[in-house]
């Protein structure tokens, strides 16, 4: 295998994992746009959604039927969490919000362990085995599948936000909650909707990554860090940025693991740290974000 095809092979694998990061980053960005907070529990919510899917499949449901049910459950769960956990502290200082989501992180993680135990579970691979050979570069069907699913999710979100009236209302709330409220929009309901959407998008990432990482309560911890890096790189208020950032982070991670000897497979988790630091020091608003102008 020539050096070029090997490089391409790594890039393809990077894009595959990057698509998963992109989808979790998308969930983070959605919540950040609506409520201005970074949800540290996003990965854990995705993890517990994945457990729901696993439970459904284990009780005999087919995967493609279990998926919509899981997404619906996640949507409802996200709305409930917004109403019960987040709404009471919505106007509280940033530190309070961070701590509440960290508390949610610990709680959800432990609940998954309590219900499903900490033993690793096999998650069914929804896509067929095998793949195709493109000029010496092997692309698995699962890689195609992951990219396709993330692309579909993106497309649906785009249509929802740009071409439906509910999307218009949601954009109004994200842009200026006070004005939105004054023009008769029920801001609270829209925020619940936003959290529900984010939980759904996050659930997609969990279901996609579970066959690779195996299902266990701490599955999403690492993915969350990559998603943070992706969202930071793309800009925390830009959905497009989250996807581009996710793909970049995925490729950078794979390449660094394969070609930089010092990093290797075990220190790959240092890559998102470096990316986050570099972006924040050089261009804090991210590639696609708008710089916040602050008036003291």
């Amino acid at each position: 295998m020539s050096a070029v095809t090997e490089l391409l092979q790594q890039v393809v694998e990077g894009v595959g994992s990057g698509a998963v990061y992109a989808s979790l980053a998308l969930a983070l960005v959605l919540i950040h746009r609506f409520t201005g907070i970074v949800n540290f529990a996003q990965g854990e919510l995705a993890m517990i959604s994945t457990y729901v899917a696993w439970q459904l499949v284990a009780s005999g449901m087919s995967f493609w039927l279990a998926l919509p049910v899981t997404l619906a459950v996640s949507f409802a769960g996200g709305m409930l969490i917004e109403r019960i956990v987040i709404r009471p502290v919505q106007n509280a200082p940033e530190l309070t919000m961070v701590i509440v989501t960290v508390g949610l992180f610990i709680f959800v993680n432990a609940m998954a362990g309590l219900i499903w135990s900490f033993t690793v579970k096999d998650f069914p691979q929804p896509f067929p085995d095998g793949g195709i050979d493109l000029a010496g570069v092997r692309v698995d069907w699962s890689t195609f599948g992951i990219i396709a699913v993330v692309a579909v999710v993106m497309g649906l979100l785009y249509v929802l936000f740009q071409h439906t009236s509910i999307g218009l209302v949601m954009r109004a709330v994200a842009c200026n909650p006070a004005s939105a409220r004054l023009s008769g929009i029920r801001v609270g309901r829209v925020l619940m909707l936003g959290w529900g959407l984010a939980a759904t998008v996050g659930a997609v990432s969990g279901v996609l990554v579970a066959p690779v990482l195996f299902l266990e309560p701490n599955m999403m911890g690492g993915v969350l860090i990559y998603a943070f890096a992706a969202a930071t790189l793309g800009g925390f208020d830009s959905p497009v940025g989250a996807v581009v950032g996710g793909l970049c982070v995925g490729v950078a991670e794979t390449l660094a693991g394969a070609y930089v000897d010092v990093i290797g497979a075990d220190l790959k988790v240092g890559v998102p740290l470096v990316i986050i630091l570099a972006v924040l020091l050089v261009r804090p608003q991210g590639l696609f974000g708008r710089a916040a102008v602050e008036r003291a």
Partner: protein
Amino acid sequence: MSTITATLDTDRARRLRLALTALLAAVVTVGAPFYFAPFQVFQLTMVLLYAVALAGLNLLVGFGGQISLGHGAFFAAGAYTAAVMLDRYDTGHLATLPVAAVGCFLLGLGFGVPALRLRGLYLALVTLSFAVFLPPLLKRLEPVTGGSMGLTVDKLQPPAWSGLAEDQWTYFVVLAVTAVALLLARNLLRSRVGRALLAVRDNESAAEVMGVRLSLHKTLAFAWSALFAGVSGCVYTWVIGFVSPDSFSFVLSITLLAGLVVGGLASLYGPLLGAAFVMYVPSVAQDISEAAPGVVFGLLIIAVMFVAPTGLAGLAGRVRGAAVSRLTRTTSAAGDRTPGSEPSAPPTPADPAPVDAEPVGAPPRTEKE
């Protein structure tokens, strides 16, 4: 005239009460290792050493208003400094303390520089990813750190003259370190540095206008807080005699923050209560199930943020405050009213609009005086 004697009286009474409390506390802390079984003494020792780390975190989060989800990393740095010194150079335990302290201070200083540009959420992100990154790094540096097997080093041994058992001697050494550390934290807060820190937390722009150098004090806050975490980690090595990368996963960082929040942000006793919480809740809850500590921690953190943002330490104060204000209200209603002696009107509900200038974890104000 009568008011003067009254204040004198209350002042004297307060001093007396304070002295009695201090005496009682001293008797209990010194007597504890002779009363309890070795395992319980060990637990108390762990509470004391966690309190040092939490006091450091408190400087940063409670008083500085910056969020760190990575203090376990500084704790680990201190622990490994001590372990490597003991393992390779056989320096003796006491020599490791200043090295760990200074090393972590410098590490914190280095970390504080990016922290300047990172507000709130972003600092939490960076510190969290640092905490996630550290265990694999420790495993990689195998020649020095012993890799994933970790390092086993000597624990503290009581000198012959003391006539104490190992657990008792360890307890007293850790007690001394903790006492000095907590005293240092308290005095630090009452110094120029501490006042600057509070000013920055409450309103950055106003603090800057008053001549507080933001960059200097934010970085220093990070460095000081790292120093405390490092000292705590160093003492951890003395007590446990074993370090491994898996003892310092990012769960430790999150647990530390959780303990501090539950104990009480920006309170002087908060770290002690929080440390007890970090030590005892998992050991009690673990009997129920492996996941129970997490469930309890998670629920408590959220509940504390909802109902008692000042934590356990603040809760006592608030209950007393409520009782006192109710009592004074009834007495002033019964007796003659003098203008001004009236208890302040019930607090008007806070402006529902988001308050930007509000310090993080606003309620800590009650603890500041």
